[in-house]
């Protein structure tokens, strides 16, 4: 799959063509192309073994590619060390020093990026607030629970305020409430502060929250688009499930208004092609729904339908 446009300096956070990597005889990345504009949450989605982690590590300069032309923040991959100060990497292993306190770990990682003095103190306070672990500052990191450990790892990745974040499965093992706050923060970083975030996941619901999804399988990029575009491509729509007293009559009323209606027992299923469709349906004369539910299409349905 070729990227839709050539590399333009200043426009792409990551741009790559012809990316290939094998470990021994096993091809892990197979002539892959990737195109990540700035200021988005980009999700690398794919099953286990699809090459997501290898790609992330390659973008960080931690894996030598066999082939490929790649730019990270406009630097060729061979010189990616020049932009390390602007990259934040959170690997799957969650590397922290278990013998140090949370504060000491954060001070260490902040120090690597030249953050000192008052600014360091402020920044540590900020990132601990983001991950909601301000009270663990003086605790030994090795004694934290798995979820807390993960959150501190994210804090250490954020402490130097990187321009481009590469997060390998950042929400694994996190409770739903914290997960929600993470996503809110990610949205804030991209929409308000113009940061770019690359996230890997194999969970469709998470990919649905992103601006762009790059679906990988067997080392190849099978699709790269926004979740809504993928759903449209699959011909999926939002639909309304209506429970009504007289399904046949109400179905006829809606068909007269031009809606496609399917009957499922006592429920009517009505696709909503546009933003005004819901209002039109509910304001249909003599229609008295007992209950209704709006059902959004999922990315999983899109991929299944597209047989990607």
């Amino acid at each position: 799959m070729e990227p839709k446009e050539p590399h333009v300096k200043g426009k792409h956070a990551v741009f790559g063509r012809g990316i290939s990597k094998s470990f021994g005889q096993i091809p892990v990345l197979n002539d892959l192309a990737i195109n990540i504009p700035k200021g988005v949450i980009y999700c690398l989605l794919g099953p286990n073994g699809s090459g997501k982690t290898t790609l992330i590590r390659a973008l960080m300069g931690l894996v030598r590619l066999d082939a490929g032309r790649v730019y990270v923040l406009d630097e060729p991959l061979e010189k990616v060390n020049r932009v390390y100060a602007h990259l934040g990497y959170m690997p799957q292993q969650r590397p922290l020093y278990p013998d140090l306190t949370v504060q000491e770990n954060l001070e260490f990682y902040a120090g690597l990026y030249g953050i000192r003095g008052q600014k360091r103190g402020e920044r540590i306070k900020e990132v601990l607030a983001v991950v909601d672990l301000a009270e663990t500052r003086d605790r030994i990191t090795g004694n934290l629970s798995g979820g807390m450990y993960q959150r501190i790892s994210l804090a250490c990745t954020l402490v130097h305020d990187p321009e481009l974040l590469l997060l390998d499965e950042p929400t694994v093992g996190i409770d739903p409430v914290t997960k929600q706050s993470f996503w809110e923060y990610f949205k804030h970083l991209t929409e308000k502060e113009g940061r770019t975030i690359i996230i890997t996941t194999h969970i469709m619901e998470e990919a649905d929250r992103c601006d762009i999804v790059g679906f990988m399988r067997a080392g190849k990029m099978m699709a790269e688009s926004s979740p809504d575009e993928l759903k449209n491509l699959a011909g999926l729509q939002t639909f309304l499930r209506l429970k009504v007293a007289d399904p046949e009559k109400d179905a006829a009323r809606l068909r007269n208004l031009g809606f496609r209606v399917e009957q499922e027992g006592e429920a009517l299923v009505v696709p909503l092609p546009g933003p005004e469709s819901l209002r039109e349906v509910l304001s249909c004369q003599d229609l008295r729904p007992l209950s209704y539910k709006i059902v959004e299409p999922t990315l999983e349905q899109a991929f299944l339908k597209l047989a990607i």
Partner: protein
Amino acid sequence: MQTERLLHSFHRIGVVGLRVIRQIKRDKRTIGLVIISPIILMVLLGYSLAGTMSGIGLGIVQLSQGTVQEGILEDLQSSDSFSLTYLASEDDADRLVSEGSLDGAVILGEDEIRLLLDGTSPQVASAIAAQVGIGMQQALSRILGGLENKISLQATLPSLTTYYVYGYDLEVKDSVGPALLGISIFFFTFLTTTISFLRERLLGTLEKVLASPLSKFELVSGYILGFLVIAFFQSATTFTILVLGFKVPMQGSLIAVLAVIMVVSAGALSFGAFLSNFARSEFQVIQFIPVVITPQIVLSGVWLPLQSIPEWLRPVAYIFPLTYSNHALRLILLKGASLTDVIYPDLVALTIFFVLTFLLAVRMLQRQEE
């Protein structure tokens, strides 16, 4: 019931044993080390313990050409253990033994055979004294064999006296003690560094740290800085025990001791950082000890003088940092050497070792997986 329980227990023991064998079977590095390490150790120990001394630097001042004196000289010349240097005067002999250029000297006077010995190496001193004693014995036997009046001979026989250049006779602990200071610093610093770097690799922190503005040079330097502080306290403790506890003499400069210790530590640190690239577990790190540490202890002159090591094996001793550390610390503690006295060759050699291993450690730290 009891028998059944016992059988189950044996079975579980067998299951664990089988798992251990299977794990080691797949760990080719450990298998290699398990086979090679004992071979290296046995060969080194065998040759070192079984060998006779050679290359002992001995000065000869021949002030008399009497029968006994000639007999002793002949015996020394025919021995393979000594490298003889003929000197004009006793003052020359004293100076050269004091400097360490000679291991001892024999002054063949008319009435007195004097041995000038370096007391800091008891084994070498004993070898010289023993050989001169044998030579004297044999000369006497030859004389007595052809004489009728043995009583009058006794009056003309030269006496044998021994002087230690440093004015005292040292015990083995005094000779070994300074060397142990260097060994303990090198060993523990090397081990802790190797394991620390390995842990960084296993935790994943090494990868994250290398994917930051921190360079490999800065990483290794930072490790050395941190561990040097630890090494300082460790060496202070060991030094205090040696000098105050075991009463090992401390004749020289504390600054000189500190300088040697710091350079040894730095070398051990960078060596450990370098070798950590070849270990995949703490188990494999431990396997390095018989390959890396033990040959140094055997060959660097700690327990046995270098002169007792076979000549073909002796050059190997000069690539080990502990050889220079032992030499320098003995000079300082036992002979009162100052910092300038141990610059060449000891501090120079230790610094070269440090720089080489530092460069190797930085080079070998891989940011990229191939």
